[in-house]
């Protein structure tokens, strides 16, 4: 290696470029940090703050700050800090796993439809449209009401009603990419359909799917909160939506019991959306030059 070689500007790796683009978006970076803290709370919070959220610890409706209860107590005299900390875990687990279910179903359906075209596409897209026209909350409620309000069922219910957007995005990307030359080139060097779909086309279709998945986490948390608010939740675990739901009758007398878990949901979902937006900017080459 001589000196001139060192001075050559090396082409940057796409990940480096995406990362730089992401770090320019200050809101997204702050949101990512806050989100990171929330996840830390979800993981370590219950150990660091070992108060059982179901224990009655003080008088009901004690306002925040009184007697050392930072967020106060709810209508049964339970510590709201403990409920928020323990609820974070459930809300985030449901958010992530429902997003995973969504992406899994959506990508499978979209990939098959976009790759095989013909009758496969017709059938799969009609099914997708069928799910799209169902009122989502109602359909999820039916699933949970029928099969019981366990965390697994709630996750599946959220996944089952929200995979359609991912399926449509995946199909559109597959339709675009399958016609590109490197796909024909791979076919010409003997790749089979499975490799073409998941080895060649899918990695190139990922950016919009990643963004959609990130936004899915936020909407899944909201969805879970909505179901809990209506009482369709596992009564043995705390989640933010459940706290709001159980305190909703006292909204006028002790509004803090509802606004505090509400703020937790709001901040988390907002952060996820901002991060998703930042990812969108970073992964979408058309927005890069702005």
């Amino acid at each position, binding site marked *: 290696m001589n000196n001139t070689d060192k001075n050559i500007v090396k*082409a940057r*790796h*796409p990940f480096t470029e995406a990362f730089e683009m992401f770090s320019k978006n200050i809101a997204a970076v702050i949101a990512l940090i806050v989100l990171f803290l929330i996840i830390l709370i979800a993981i370590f919070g219950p150990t660091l703050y070992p108060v059982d959220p179901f224990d009655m610890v003080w008088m009901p409706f004690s306002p925040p700050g009184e007697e050392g209860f930072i967020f106060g107590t709810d209508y049964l005299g339970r510590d709201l800090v403990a409920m928020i900390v323990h609820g974070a875990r459930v809300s985030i687990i449901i958010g992530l796993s429902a997003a995973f279910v969504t992406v899994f179903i959506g990508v499978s359906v979209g990939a098959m439809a976009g790759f095989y*075209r*013909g009758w496969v596409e017709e059938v799969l897209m009609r099914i997708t449209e069928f799910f799209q026209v169902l009122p989502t909350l109602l359909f999820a409620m039916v699933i949970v009401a029928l099969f019981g309000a366990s965390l697994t069922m709630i996750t599946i219910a959220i996944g089952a009603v929200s995979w359609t957007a991912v399926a449509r995005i995946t199909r559109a990307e597959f339709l675009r990419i399958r016609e*590109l*030359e*490197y796909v*024909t*080139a*791979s*076919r*010409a*060097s*003997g*790749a*089979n359909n499975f*490799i073409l779909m998941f080895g*060649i086309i899918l*990695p*190139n279709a990922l950016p919009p799917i990643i963004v959609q998945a990130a936004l899915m986490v936020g909407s899944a948390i909201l969805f879970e909160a909505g179901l809990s608010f209506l009482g369709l939740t596992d009564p043995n675990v705390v989640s933010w939506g459940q706290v709001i739901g159980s305190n909703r009758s006292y909204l006028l007398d002790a509004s803090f019991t509802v606004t505090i878990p509400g703020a937790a949901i709001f901040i988390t979902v907002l952060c996820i959306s901002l991060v998703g937006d930042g990812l969108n900017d970073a992964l979408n080459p058309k927005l890069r030059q702005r």
Partner: protein
Amino acid sequence: MTDPLLSVKNLRIELNTRDGVAPVIDDFSFDLFPGEAISFVGESGCGKSMTALGIMGLLPEGVGKIASGSINFAGEDLSSAEQKRMRNIRGNEISMIFQEPMTSLNPVYTIGEQIAEVLRAHQGLSKQASWTKAIELLDAVRIPNPQARISDYPFQMSGGQRQRVMIAIALACEPKILIADEPTTALDVTVQAQIFDLLNDLRKQTGTAIILITHDMGAVAEMAERMIVMYAGRKVEEGPVQQVIDNAGHPYTQGLISCVPHILEKLTAKRQMLQEVPGIVPSLRDFGKDQCLFASRCQYVSEKCNNTRPTENKFSSSQTVACWLTESIQ
């Protein structure tokens, strides 16, 4: 004479269009012998690429299909081979490189991964062995510093380098036939010459037969031994390259050759005014007609040309021409 490696007989490829079924390739036959380089020449839309895709079994699904004829490769008819068998042949025994090197490589994998993938799939090499082989291949296609470049992504390479990588992928499994579909159209002239040199050298080393698809007469003269001139899905002339260029039999071939500019300052007998072939290729609708499809653009057209499809006549010992006027215009 040895047996041909690839023997295409009376091939007819049909495309479904809005106006019905059109034969993009009509009654097309040719032989390719081991180690030989032949060239398909013709304007855009003459069915050169369709023939190549037909041989590879890569015709656009639901749109194009082989209607009749046979593609005989080493004793096997590819036109009726199963998908699984075709996948095994593609990339392993017959490879193809494409026109557009900028988009023919997958942007999310390093070039090393893309070369190694083919080796693993067809030759069952281990990860380590395929990687070593990939470095050797990059060296063979004259990419400097292959050890370092192997973990580059396609966007880090120039057009010429990418086409070299494509050639490395195509030749990875030492195929018997390499189909090069306008391999240099997207590259600038100096790089074109390098790529042709490379292909020629690799052909000498490996004995791979090459089918070069092009509309560049210069490329044909440089690369191929025999050329097949195609017009509207039919073969109009076939013969050894030098012979055809010196003494073209078909008016279309003559037109193509007179289109090539020569770098000479003054108009002389050697450099005449640049000719063009007037008109355009007929639309797909007219491809199946029983007439000479070049008739509408031909200055020697006669009644017979419009009514009957010309047969292939021997023009000289090794040259055939499909034109009714072969005798009179010599």
